């Protein structure tokens, strides 16, 4: 069975065959070599040490391969464990006013956060947003109608006094027998013109005042809208502000978890490295014996019998 591993740097996954290929040839070629060696040994007793050396070397080779596989599997398991250990943990923050902040992993693996205001805060926010909308709505309306309304109210306030002034003048004019005076120069009498001018000026002033007032009100409404809008976000801002201690705590927890994961990984890797070292040493030893045997087999010397081989193996 091919065990998959990955190249972290490139993300490429390798199996055993790929490793054998990287060792110098195909798997069938290697065993063909061993078969040939056996045949040689059967035919030539003097080459038995060489065969043994070869077998040992092959064993060492196999062990090294197994060690690599085990190390790789251990690393994979470690990575998986560390990934799980360092996984983000959802958390929630609830403020004193009842609003809440939540953080969780979404179905797609993405991080999702939610902020929820308390019903009272939502009501207040809606009220403020509604007020802001109303004020902005009023601020964006043409001022002509409001000017007229203000002007009418000012005129309503001014009219009684103007009426009194007109009546007083009318009485004076009547007493002077001048009610019927019409002049090309003044229209009526100079006093009538003066009063009419004064009243008209007051009327004009009222009109200009109404325009100014309407504009001020428009600006005031815009400012109020702005204030309401800002105040409407105040619960949210306070929620965010209240979230800060929770976030700090979560960060500490996250750091602790990451640190634990790191420690676990390092420890696990140390074990794997120790195992690798041991297995490599055994493989090296075995490989060295095999190499010596092979070396002796291929070196010309007196006939080498089985006893020799057993002597070499400490069995004779």
């Amino acid at each position, binding site marked *: 069975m091919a065990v998959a591993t990955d190249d972290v740097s490139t993300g490429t996954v390798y199996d055993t065959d790929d490793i054998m290929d990287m060792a110098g040839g195909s798997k069938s070629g290697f065993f063909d070599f061993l078969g040939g060696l056996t045949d040689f040994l059967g035919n030539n007793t003097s080459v038995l040490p060489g065969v043994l050396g070869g077998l040992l070397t092959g064993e060492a080779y196999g062990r090294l391969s197994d060690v690599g596989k085990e190390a790789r599997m251990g690393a994979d398991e470690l990575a998986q464990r560390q990934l799980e250990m360092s996984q983000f943990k959802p958390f929630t923050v609830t403020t004193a006013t009842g609003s809440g902040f939540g953080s969780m992993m979404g179905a797609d693996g993405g991080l999702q956060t939610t902020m929820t205001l308390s019903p009272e805060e939502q009501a207040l926010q809606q009220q403020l947003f509604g007020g802001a909308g109303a004020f902005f709505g009023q601020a964006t309306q043409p001022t002509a109608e409001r000017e007229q309304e203000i002007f009418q109210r000012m005129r309503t306030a001014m009219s009684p006094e103007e009426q009194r002034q007109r009546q007083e003048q009318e009485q004076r004019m*009547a*007493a002077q*027998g001048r009610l019927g*005076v019409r*002049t*090309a*120069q003044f229209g009526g009498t100079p006093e009538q013109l003066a009063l009419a001018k004064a009243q008209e000026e007051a009327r004009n002033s009222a009109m200009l005042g109404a325009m100014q007032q309407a504009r001020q009100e428009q600006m005031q409404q815009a400012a109020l809208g702005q204030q309401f809008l800002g105040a409407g976000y105040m619960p949210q801002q306070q929620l965010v502000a209240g979230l800060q201690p929770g976030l700090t705590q979560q960060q500490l927890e996250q750091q602790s978890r990451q640190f634990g994961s790191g420690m676990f990984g390092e420890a696990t890797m140390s074990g794997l490295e120790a195992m690798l070292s041991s297995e490599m040493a055994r493989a090296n030893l075995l490989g060295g014996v095999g190499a010596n045997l092979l070396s002796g087999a291929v070196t010309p010397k007196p006939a080498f019998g089985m006893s020799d081989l057993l002597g070499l193996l400490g069995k004779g």
Partner: protein
Amino acid sequence: MAQELKSINLVAPAFKGINTEDSPLAQDPSFAEIADNAVIDKRGRIAARKGHSVITTDKTELGSGTIRAIKEFDRSVGSNVILSVGNNKIFTGTTTLTDATPGGYTITADNWKIVNFNDKAYLFQASQAPLVYDGSSVVRLDSVAGAAGVVQGNEVLSAFGRLWVTGVSSNPSIVYWSDLLIGHDYSGGTSGSIDISKVWPDGYDEIVALAAHNGLLIIFGKHSIVTYSGAEAPATMALADTVAGVGCVNRDTVQYTGTDVLFLAHTGLKSFGRTVQEKSLPISSLSGNITKDIISALQSENTFFRSVYSPEESFYLLTFVGQNITYCFDVRGTLENGSYRVTRWLSTGFSSYARKENGDLLIGTINGISQYAGYEDNGNTYRFKYYSPSLTFGDASRIKILKKLKPTLVGANNAAVFIKWAYDFKGTYATSEFTVGDQITGYYGESEYTTVEFTGGALTNQRSLNATGYGTSVVVGLEADIKGSQLSLQEINVMALIGKLL
């Protein structure tokens, strides 16, 4: 048994003028029951009025009409021009009446009022486009360059630097005034108007006439009068006084006497007396001795009223043209009751008057323009009449038997004089006639050693006439045809025998 004759001397008879208001029996002999074609002369005597001497020699344009208005156009440069109207035409000149009516302009009445203003003469009458005469021609006022808002009024007054127009038929309570010194602009500059319909003290009236006096603008209604002060600036003029119950009958009865404004009201001739201290305008009746006669005359008048004030003659003439009656008010002083001395001129044919700058009094008649001068009416005689009130000689219960009448006349050269008397209010008069002799005055150095001796001035003539009849009250009269010579009645001495009690 012989009885003493009682002498009643009527000194300066009728020097108080006519009195038809008081009871004849209780009257002062200084009044007259009748004083026709008479005036009060400079000595306070009743005298024959002057006649009129016709100046016009060519009255072709006048035709059969009569002169209805005369005005001397005073201009700053050149000689004055006499404007007159009649026969639905406008005339210039006196000896020859030249038609100056604008071409294409149709005149339907001759009730013009003509005033001088700023070197022009303006003519206004109701329902007729106003005219203006600049010394060369008469033109429509609304055709003058710059004319605006010209109104067709019946009354016009030149005062306070403006023309004041009223009597517009559609707006009888509005007075319009022109721009300053511009008689043809009624809608620009400082022109204007005033509706006094809310000012009338009686609630409603219609403007009849205008006058300016003592710094006041006087607006005459038919039954009331309102006055405004400060008319120099019409926009700010203010009501000064109102008079209810007295108005003006006709615009042509208003005359200025310098200290008074005379006008004919429905109850007689009135005047504003100027009272500086009280700053008020008391109204006195100047025709209190003939109130009923005046009222009767004005009620019967359906043509024109004409009047004139002559300071040279010291009289105010008021003519009821339709009835051919003229009342002559002596304005030199008033009687105890505040009335002017008044005499009556009948059948004169006077239809208009104008006093010239030089004091001449022009009279409009059917013959054209005359001058008040001489003692003939266009060469004809006219009859002077004087009748005393009923005389009782202090005792109405006794019979009086007239014995002699001794009139003393001044002047009356060659005049036929008729002395009349009647008893007990009967209209049948006994008459005694005499002719005054030659009364031509011989002045020193002129007639000496010729036909007459020089005399002391106007000659007097005394006669003694026998009278007949008897009665409890006696009316004495004197009539004379005036023909070329003045006549003044100095006195009438009545010699009567007082009889028994009835």
